[in-house]
């Protein structure tokens, strides 16, 4: 058996096309799944075209501008690489820290972490004006003072570690897998907190320049890791059994539920203190915080970030004696949606106050001659362009497809080979 055969089930790979083939006699659940996968394939292909358009035309096809330089692609990139770190950290409880109950999901989690990181890279690649120049100059002309340089370096190395870890896990080389796993845990924390620092070190943007941000990012990534794995456990059982959890998965499911309760509580506490301390600031951080609490971000903050983000999930997860596995899974899925909204709000909110002084509260008016268009008083607008929106949708579709495809074709369980 050659090296690739130890990782990939070739027979399953050749059957991968069947995933998109509709069988007339198939049960309704499977038929619906096939339709969904077909739709996702179309979406992913359209997203792929959008990435090419973005690479060719750059900022000309983006909704961003010189006053709002970062948009939905940055938010989506952070969203996906947060999944990477979270999946890696939560699953490490099993194959690195030896908690037996988490061991069954280790391989799948590392695989999903790899998928989200690769998709995250594609998004940041299409966001950059010259992604290839970054590969070249990050090596030839590095700036170790720049958090973005560290971001590229840490996540680049992290991908290598993840690939190695997955290969060792699939080959059941537990000794090497553990070493790679330990390095992976360190990289997951380093890379994601550093990504928080990309924002936290932006002194010019007071809403971002907050020492809690790296910790906040890490806490959210743990939520996403636990929540994605919980959904994975339930969904893979549900598709096999027609809607219920297998008895052997119950302990793992319950352990993930408890972890998620812990992580959601941490996110809740951090959210409360981030916003209360911001209220004590002056100037931009205060203005933006008020925009969250009572202004343009009010609905998305209170509904998505707070209520659906951790309040409702905590109620359902804590009351799980009376909640079915399906309800727990649904409640675990909500924070993933909220995590996207949170990042979108966060990226836009940090930039939405023009840094140039405009109309002051005391009637001080300032008229700016040429510089930038749309420099009006109040909050700067941002709407994602069609290309940006398609890249985001395509990325979500690509992650689902790659995960489903990988789960079908990689050798996660060792069958006896003749």
């Amino acid at each position: 058996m050659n090296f690739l055969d130890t990782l990939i089930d070739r027979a399953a790979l050749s059957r991968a096309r069947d995933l998109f083939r509709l069988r007339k006699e198939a049960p309704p659940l499977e038929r619906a799944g096939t339709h969904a996968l077909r739709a996702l394939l179309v979406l992913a292909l359209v997203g792929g075209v959008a990435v090419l358009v973005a690479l060719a035309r750059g900022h000309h096809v983006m909704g961003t501008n010189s006053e709002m330089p970062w948009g939905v692609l940055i938010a989506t990139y952070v969203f996906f690489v947060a999944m990477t770190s979270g999946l890696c950290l939560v699953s490490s409880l099993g194959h690195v820290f030896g908690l037996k109950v988490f061991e069954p999901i280790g391989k799948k989690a590392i695989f999903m972490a790899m998928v989200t990181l690769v998709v995250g890279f594609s998004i940041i690649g299409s966001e950059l004006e010259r992604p290839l120049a970054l590969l070249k100059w990050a090596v030839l002309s590095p700036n170790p003072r720049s958090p973005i340089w560290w971001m590229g370096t840490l996540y680049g190395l992290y991908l290598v570690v993840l690939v190695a870890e997955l290969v060792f896990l699939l080959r059941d080389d537990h000794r090497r897998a553990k070493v790679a796993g330990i390095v992976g845990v360190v990289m997951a924390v380093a890379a994601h907190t550093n990504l928080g620092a990309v924002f936290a070190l932006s002194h010019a943007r007071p809403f971002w320049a907050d020492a809690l941000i790296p910790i906040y990012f890490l806490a959210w990534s743990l939520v996403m890791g636990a929540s994605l794995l919980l959904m994975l456990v339930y969904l893979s059982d549900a598709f096999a059994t027609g809607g219920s959890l297998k008895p052997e998965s119950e302990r793992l499911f319950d352990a993930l539920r408890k972890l998620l309760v812990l992580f959601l509580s941490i996110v809740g506490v951090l959210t409360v203190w981030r916003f209360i301390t911001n209220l004590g600031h002056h100037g931009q951080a205060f203005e933006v915080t008020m925009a969250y609490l009572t202004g343009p971000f009010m609905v998305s903050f209170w509904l998505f970030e707070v209520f659906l983000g951790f309040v409702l999930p905590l109620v359902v997860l804590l009351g799980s004696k009376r909640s079915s596995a399906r309800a727990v899974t649904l409640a675990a899925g909500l924070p993933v949606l909220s995590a996207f909204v949170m990042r979108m709000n966060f990226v836009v909110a940090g930039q939405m106050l023009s840094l140039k002084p405009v109309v002051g509260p005391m009637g001080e008016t300032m008229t700016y001659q040429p510089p930038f268009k749309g420099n009006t008083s109040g909050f700067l607008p941002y709407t994602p362009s069609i290309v940006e929106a398609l890249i985001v949708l395509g990325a979500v579709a690509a992650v689902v497809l790659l995960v489903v495809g990988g789960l079908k074709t990689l050798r996660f369980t060792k069958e006896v080979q003749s």
Partner: protein
Amino acid sequence: MARYGMTVDEKLCVTCNACVIACKSENNVPEGAARCWTVQAEKGTFPFLSVETRSERCNHCENAPCVSACPTQATHVEEGGVVVVDQDKCVGCKACIVACPYEVRYLHPDGYVDKCTFCLHRVRQGKDPACVSVCPTSALTFGDLDDPRAKIFQQLQQRQHRVAKPEEGTRPKLFFLK
């Protein structure tokens, strides 16, 4: 080693925008963007009104946040402490635009970030920056902040002046004379 800076005399500036036009033609600045611009600010409430006028551009900070933010050293400090962007090395991550407290940077249509260079190509030939040369009221002065014989040195000795957002700790080298 020179330490270049610029003063803007708010008493002399009439916001004629000659500096803006000169900069645009000297540096081929694309439509919709500017490396230098003018500000007219009405202050106070009736009847105690006044108008502030000035020309603005990159502050060429001594502690420049854009230089720290750039992952590839595309934004770097050149001779005389002038902060410039190397177009080849710029990857278009826009971290410098985010980091700059003064919004002096813009994304060039060709996919790199651009801003004022104090016309370093002219300064190397012994000339003033284009905006300084063209100013009809001599409101702009460019020179070595450490040279006691320079006009800018004497202005900063004798006149009250301020910098933009001193609280950012960036130590700007663009001074506004009151």
